[in-house]
């Protein structure tokens, strides 16, 4: 295998999405808008967490970027630029994903941009052996390789995710849920892409398996330097692994900040409500309230700020004016939020005006200490030895 470049070149963008709009159904056929004016930039090696509830448009957005959204999904506006590294090296080339033809897309897919789906059970072809499903992508994108080379690579990939080579001949139904998801991850990394989009990759798994796979995934990311768009409704998990978190509500980005900023000092009432929806594992028990009401239906969107019917801070202007994503008033960080409480027009409630954390350290997976197993923290993990 070719050697991986030494570490990700942070700062260089790999994906630029601007003002992306996505509908279900054509406008002429009475389609509904599912994603509105989403703008963000993803840099090489960055882990972007996309959090939101069902119907918030997070999956729609993720599938539309590689233009894999199913009918009746339609992209109705905006731009998606993917910065493709040429095979032989050299400066990256900007590819407009929305004007690209089928062949251009086919050549970007999996080579530069791959995906991991929520349910590996459904994402693996039930009637084909693991080997065939790992090598078909090599046969397509590495035409010069011999069958022996492809097989060798398939073995290497399986071993990378901790599966023994003898499972190559297995069918998907012969593997456990965790193993199937590992196969999917191995498959996604087969061509060492620059970006992996992960749609709730661990939601269907048990918590122990989920943890094992997340740890493995982040270790691989550290080693191979790919960027990740990680979609989940589980904000508490995202806070542990993402560099940047984008919170979606009703098809819009309502807040985007580093994981540390978001968990320590949320700016949007919805972000704060979400954070307060996860009971803590430790510390004093306190009564929590979640967020009243339910997310709006796509067909009956409220006017103004889409969150106002559920927002305790909603004011007069929220009913009619839709806030734009902007840097919060008085913040020096690169974070953005879409809320009139943060643009200086209204007083900001204290709980939404906590100071930005001083150290905007990337997620713990980025610290060198995470690469080697950390010594256990006695407060976190009680060992049996402590008991007697």
């Amino acid at each position, binding site marked *: 295998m070719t050697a991986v470049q030494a570490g990700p070149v942070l700062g260089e963008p790999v994906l630029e999405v601007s003002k992306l709009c996505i509908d279900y159904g054509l406008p002429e056929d009475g389609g509904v808008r599912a994603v509105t004016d989403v703008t963000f930039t993803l840099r090489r090696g960055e882990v972007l967490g996309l959090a939101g*509830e*069902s119907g918030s448009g997070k999956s729609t957005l993720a599938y539309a970027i590689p233009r894999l959204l199913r009918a009746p999904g339609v992209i109705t506006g905006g731009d998606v630029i993917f910065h493709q590294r040429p095979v032989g090296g050299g400066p990256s080339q900007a590819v407009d994903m929305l004007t690209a033809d089928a062949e251009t897309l086919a050549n970007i897919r999996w080579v530069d941009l791959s995906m991991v789906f929520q349910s590996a059970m459904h994402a693996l072809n039930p009637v084909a052996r693991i080997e065939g499903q790992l090598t078909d992508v090599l046969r397509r994108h590495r035409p010069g390789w011999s069958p022996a080379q492809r097989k060798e690579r398939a073995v290497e990939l399986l071993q990378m995710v901790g599966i023994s080579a003898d499972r190559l001949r297995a069918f998907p139904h012969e593997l*456990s*849920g*965790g193993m199937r998801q590992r196969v999917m991850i191995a498959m996604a990394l087969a061509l060492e892409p620059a970006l992996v989009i992960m749609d709730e990759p661990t939601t269907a798994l*048990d*918590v*122990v*398996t*989920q*943890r*094992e796979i997340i*740890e493995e995934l982040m270790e691989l990311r550290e080693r191979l330097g790919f960027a990740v768009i990680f979609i989940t*409704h*589980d*904000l*508490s*998990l995202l*806070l*542990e692994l993402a560099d940047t978190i984008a919170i979606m509500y009703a098809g819009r980005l309502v807040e985007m900040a580093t994981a540390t900023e978001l*968990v320590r000092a949320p700016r949007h009432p919805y972000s704060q*409500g*979400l*954070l*307060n*929806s*996860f*009971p*803590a*594992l*430790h*510390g004093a*028990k306190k*009564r*929590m*309230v*979640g*967020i*009243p009401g*339910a*997310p709006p239906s796509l067909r009956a969107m409220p006017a103004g700020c889409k969150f106002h019917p*559920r927002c305790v801070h909603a004011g007069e202007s929220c009913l009619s004016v839709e806030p734009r994503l902007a840097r919060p008033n008085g913040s020096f960080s690169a974070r953005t939020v879409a809320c009139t409480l943060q643009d200086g027009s209204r007083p900001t409630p204290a709980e939404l005006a906590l100071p930005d954390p001083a150290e905007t350290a990337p997620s*713990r*997976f980025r610290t060198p*200490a*995470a690469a080697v*197993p*950390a010594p*256990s*923290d006695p407060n*976190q*993990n*009680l*060992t*049996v*030895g*402590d*008991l*007697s």
Partner: protein
Amino acid sequence: MTDSVTPPAGTAPTVVHGPKREGTPALEARGLTKHFPVGRGKVVHAVEEISIALPEATVTAVVGESGSGKSTLARLLTGLIKPTSGELLLDGKPVGTSAKALRAYTSDVHLVLQDPFSSLNSAHSVGYHIERPLKLHSDVRGAELDAKVVELLDRVSLSPGAEFAAKYPHELSGGQRQRVAIARGLAVRPRVLLADEPVSMLDVSIRLGVLNLFDGLREDERLAILYVTHDIASARYLADTIVVMYAGQVVESGPAEQITDAPQHPYTQLLLSAAPDPARDQAPELRGSGSPPSLVNPPSGCRFHPRCPFAMAVCKEQAPPSLPVGTDQVAACWLHSPEHKAEADAVSAQI
């Protein structure tokens, strides 16, 4: 962390899990066992010898991974499936096996299921769903019945109740459906509410609303609630007592905060270290790997031993008894047995 314990030598007394309260528990299960035949003489050992007591006005959380038998336990408690062995006691009285006794039992014990999208029949209105248990188990009829339906809907915060009663399930959101399912359970003033993952399919922001509803019912209706979940953080939030299940058996139980703050069984520790925790800033160290065993051929001895980093010789051979490890806390683990203390210390020191 705890004082050394003195389990009675040689005997393995039946340990009854669940919140410790004075008086007779609303529902008690003794030695419940369920083996499902799967053909060719094989059986799935889904639930083994579980004794659990649910006193009124308490919440007991049953936590475990998929396939741990927690849902089967909940269904055994409804009387919906017959246990292979063991018995149920309602207010201290054994539940009869006659059709009449079982029908009476169904008015006292209700089950709320996981999927709010399939737990209501799309062919019937919300009102119908709530009327049925009333018609089956009470003499309320006519205008009184309608008033009762409205009152029940209001009680689960579906107001105005009359309006909701006329709606059909497809017009409701997931959280609202789950409230209808709970209202139906409350219709005939049950003693016990069994909730099988009642919030796992709901949106994150509305889960707490439903959990808080359970919390309120515990006090207001003096209900004995069994909360089955895979989410140990929500179990800690809602429950008085947490019961941890693994491969059909209870491995640890005790007061909720004690379990999450001072887990004594290696499996509970594994579960806790794997759970997402935003407060954590270091990678958790997972002790133990692999996946749950087949319940057709469960491992010998302690069923957790193939995954357990502390496994000793005895763990492979003998199933551990439930040993007291703290105030009202028990763990089924040989590490806590005085006879194996020396070996346990040695194993722990290595890790």
